[in-house]
């Protein structure tokens, strides 16, 4: 068992900083080839994961979950009760989905999600997070000035709406369920799912447009 020694890790970081190439692509090449040389990595498995996170596991999954909650009251109830369990119905369970929590926007509540300490994100239903979600400006500001952050994303909250910021400090992962737009009565699940954006499920978008997406 390795001793979990923070000072030793800091010293190793300094050494790595000094000896690894500065260019990120070259660093990844070096790490991949040392892992292969040591028999610790099959590059074809890496290819498969790249396909999975480029094409399969992304915000289209979350959009389907949201649209289903809009059209199927029993699914909505189960999603709000235990989202990690509810998404097993659709086969969307996976990385960090065990303790998934769905939080619903209403006319008077707006939810927005962050991880101030690192980058926790509901990957199983939204795919890999955008860079801005993991970057200092968003992590620093959204807990302190959510209205200002929303404004930057082009969202003006109506008067009297309460903002709930969810800081993902444990293994719970948060998925915002945006409001179903008016004028979509009778729409199919597939058509509704096309309205639901990644940002609306993070909470940096609020009113979903029926036409082509927002232009900033």
């Amino acid at each position, binding site marked *: 068992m390795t001793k979990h020694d923070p000072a030793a890790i800091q010293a190793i970081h300094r050494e790595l900083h000094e000896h690894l190439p500065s260019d990120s692509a070259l660093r990844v*090449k070096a790490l991949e080839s040392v892992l292969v040389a040591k028999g610790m990595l099959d590059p074809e498995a890496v290819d498969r994961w*790249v396909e999975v996170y480029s094409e399969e596991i992304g915000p289209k999954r979350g959009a389907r979950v949201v649209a289903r909650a809009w059209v199927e009251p029993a699914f909505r109830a189960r999603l709000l009760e235990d989202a990690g369990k509810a998404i097993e119905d659709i086969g969307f369970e996976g990385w960090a989905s065990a303790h998934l929590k769905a939080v619903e926007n209403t006319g008077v509540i707006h939810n927005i999600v962050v991880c101030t300490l690192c980058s926790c994100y509901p990957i199983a239903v939204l795919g890999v997070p955008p860079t801005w979600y993991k970057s200092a400006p968003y992590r620093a500001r959204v807990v*302190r000035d959510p209205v200002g952050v929303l404004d930057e994303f082009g969202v003006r909250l109506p008067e009297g709406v309460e903002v709930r*910021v969810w800081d993902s400090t444990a293994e719970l992962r948060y998925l915002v369920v945006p409001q179903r737009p008016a004028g979509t009565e009778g729409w199919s699940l597939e058509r509704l799912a096309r309205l639901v954006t990644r940002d609306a499920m993070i909470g940096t978008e609020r009113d979903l447009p029926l036409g082509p997406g927002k232009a900033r």
Partner: protein
Amino acid sequence: MDGIHDLGGRQGFGLIDVDEPEQPFHHPWEARLLGLVRAMGRPGDWSIDWFRHCRELIDPVDYLTRPYYDQWLQTYAAMMVKSGVATVAEIAAGTGKPSAVPTSPPMKPADVDSAKRAVVRFDRDSRAAAAFKVGDAVRAKGHGASGHTRLPAYVRGRRGDIVAYHGAHVLPDANALGEATAEPLYTVAFAAAELWPEAAGRRDSVRLDLWQSYLDRP
């Protein structure tokens, strides 16, 4: 630890890149690194919280300036060196002999389809009694721990209300050290006005998932 990673409420970072293109990866190496992390064999003494702690220990300038997946790379490289599976020189050269330290077998391409649906739970059966119940007022501890911890600085010493109880979850502070301890976990709502002077009069709240040992009675 009171490190550079604890960013909530810090000021002066400027604007968010709201026009970032929506595709999941912006450079091929980012996707490669993520795939590599998911597929590699690993020693038995790693955990999610040890990984997080090792990332927190990156030099503060690098933490704020190196790209995100590049930081993952450096963190995994540091963990490999610490666990004795590779040396810095081997990683820099991209070559080396199989390590004496045992690692799990590398994932095979055919295993990815089941691995992508694997669910890891962090709740545990525990006899630790819940000290608080939903509706209770609590106060977050006034100081942080010097190791890995998940109590952000911006709520320390502040008063909040328990809005949910989740049973016992693995305690990150202990998990980072390779110890298996679980503690009652709660969602605590802090009024924005309790946290930030400029939020006076606003009804907004910030909600965090906090372990029992992070909390006191108010």
